[in-house]
């Protein structure tokens, strides 16, 4: 009996020793990420660049604006192409406006407002082929980040990286360290739009549903990830009188409507009161599922598209068009949620709501009853944004994967006759 007892003690002791030695998870993790390398430059050189440059190829298109006889196409981080659209059947580039660092711009009363790194510029485009720089609000968006040599941070180069790590490595400690690897300069002033950059555009001739820049009541409003920058648009257009306020996280789009600003974030639609234009006050917030969500207010309703997809900037599984009653802006109420496939930009033309569904086509809703959109037409046109011509409601511009197409559309929105395509 005693020998048996010792044997079992020995077995159990051996097992315990073995157990304690080999209980660490083991394996490898291959990590794919983007490494950012800071680029520094001289802001004075950037600011002194000639405004007008020769025509160049559209390589990385960004924002769009449809003028009366011209089209503006943003070249991400470089400037804006001016395209002469006098002949709709054959639009042609006329000049290039050099605005280094530009991604966002809007046009209001023949004045182009655009950001350029840390600055906001105001350009007269009454004659689009002869733009005139009216004013520059230096450092209106953010004070400059400088390196030890006094050079200014003007962006990052992104490189795709892969690294294989073992159990005991720590990606965040060893690879990322203290670097702001993914943080864009100036606290993500204009991070990559949730809409693919080449498709991001204005959704009407006035202002877009996927913009971060808006002008209303004599003030310019620019949203970053968490800040709202307000610049009074007066004779003294400068950073001296601007306001930068941290108001909420995750802001993506801004749209002025009456005395209010509609701000879309990934999780909500917020309405700000503009009684004091310099200090917008949050009056209501309508929470929704996390998604990319342009907002388009229209009289007493707001249309919000929620778009999500795997492996996208907007992960999730909700794709819908929300109709929100904003009759009482302090008490926004959901009226309807319409299932969609992949909604991007929206536009209202006459009594119709056009919704670009990307590769899932174009849907047109009858909104003669604003609170109850009814699907009217569906076209097999790959559409990421829809913009109406300001001078002719029967001409519709559609941003697709290969460029900007102009269509002549009948009153019933049933026939789309392609006029031309500006390829990029």
């Amino acid at each position, binding site marked *: *009996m005693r020998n*048996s*007892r010792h044997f*079992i*003690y020995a*077995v*159990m002791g051996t*097992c*315990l020793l*073995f*157990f*304690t030695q*080999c*209980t*660490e*998870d*083991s*394996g*490898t*993790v*291959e*990590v*794919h*990420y*983007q490494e950012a390398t800071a680029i520094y430059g001289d802001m004075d050189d950037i600011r002194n660049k000639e405004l007008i440059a020769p025509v160049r190829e559209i390589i990385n298109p960004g924002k769009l604006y449809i003028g009366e006889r011209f089209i503006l196409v943003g070249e991400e981080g470089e400037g804006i192409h001016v395209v002469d659209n006098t002949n709709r059947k054959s639009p042609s580039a006329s000049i290039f406006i050099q605005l280094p660092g530009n991604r966002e711009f809007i046009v209001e009363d023949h004045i182009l407002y655009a950001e350029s790194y840390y600055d906001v510029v105001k350009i007269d485009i009454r004659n689009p082929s002869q733009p005139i720089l009216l004013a520059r609000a230096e450092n209106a968006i953010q004070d400059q980040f400088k390196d030890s040599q006094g050079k200014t941070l003007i962006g990052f180069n992104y490189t795709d990286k892969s690294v294989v*790590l*073992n*159990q*005991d*490595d*720590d*990606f*965040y*400690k060893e690879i990322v360290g203290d670097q702001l690897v*993914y*943080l864009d300069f100036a606290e*993500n002033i204009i991070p990559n739009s949730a809409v693919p950059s080449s498709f991001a555009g204005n959704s009407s001739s006035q202002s877009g549903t996927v913009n971060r820049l808006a002008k209303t009541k004599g003030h310019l409003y620019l949203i970053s*990830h968490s800040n709202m920058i307000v610049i009074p648009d007066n004779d003294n257009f400068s950073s001296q009188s601007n306001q930068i306020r941290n108001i909420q996280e995750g802001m993506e789009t801004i749209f002025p409507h009456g005395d209010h600003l509609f701000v879309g974030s990934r999780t909500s639609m917020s309405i700000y009161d503009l009684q004091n234009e310099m200090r917008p006050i949050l009056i209501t917030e309508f929470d929704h599922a*996390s998604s990319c969500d342009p907002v388009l207010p229209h009289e007493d309703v707001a249309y919000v598209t929620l778009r*999500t*997809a*795997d*492996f*996208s*900037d*907007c*992960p*999730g*599984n909700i794709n819908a068009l929300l109709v929100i009653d904003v009759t009482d802006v302090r008490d926004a109420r959901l009226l309807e949620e319409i299932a969609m496939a992949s909604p991007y930009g929206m536009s209202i033309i006459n009594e119709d709501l056009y919704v670009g569904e990307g590769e899932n086509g174009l849907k047109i809703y009858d909104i003669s009853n604003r609170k109850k959109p009814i699907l009217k037409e569906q076209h097999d046109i790959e559409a990421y944004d829809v913009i109406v011509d300001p001078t002719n409601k029967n001409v519709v511009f559609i941003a697709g994967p290969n460029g900007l197409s102009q269509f002549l559309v009948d009153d019933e929105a049933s026939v789309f006759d392609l006029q031309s395509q500006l390829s990029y």
Partner: protein
Amino acid sequence: MRKYILFFCLLQCYVNAIAQTNSDWAIASYKNGSIYLGQKLSERDGLIKLRLPTSDTITVNRFTGATIYDSNNAVVFSDGKFFLTKGYFWSTNFGFSVNRGETAHLDLLFGQHINPKLDLAIGFGSEFNESRVAGFSFDSQVITLFGYGRYYITSMKPRVFAFAKLGYGFAADESTEGIPREHFGGINAKYGLGVQFASRNKSKFQLTLGHYFQKTSGQESFLDLIGNEIETEFDILIKRLVVTFGWDF
């Protein structure tokens, strides 16, 4: 530290067990609820003579409705507790890790007592493991199908056994909140020691300490603090000490 406490608990169980002996006891359990426990004196043509603790002698008929637990199908102890050594059994077990991240295992087995020393079973289960590798946390959930064997080292009242299971864990993960992930399963195994406690009914409580393995691989994306995507491809062998408690019935 917890694992040492567990170890000493198991040792204590064993030491208690070693001090006890069983002899040729038998139980006759009738459907009307009557239970007779006694030392088996003889058996002929299904008629079993039992000497009860009161020194009275009774005869029970194996073929007239009584369930008999004796050395043919059980290990019976003097206080009426017993283990079965023949027949089929079900077992359900719940396990958790004592040394690594979050772990929750639940399984159900159907088996047979092959002989007084050996049980064999097949089973299925659901297992969740959180593992941290290279600074990333991977949650994996698998549905397991496995074969199981248990060898009794002792036959005392709390009897010590060694066990092992081997099977395959099928990935059962789903994407959450649209964060893309694709998990694959792999081999699933566990071996270790346990102790089962005798009882006066067919249900037996048991505790085990096992060394657990689950192979898993796949792709998973993470979002950093400002929403940038980090894609990972992982290939991990999950290893941990798992304490299980369960019942045979």
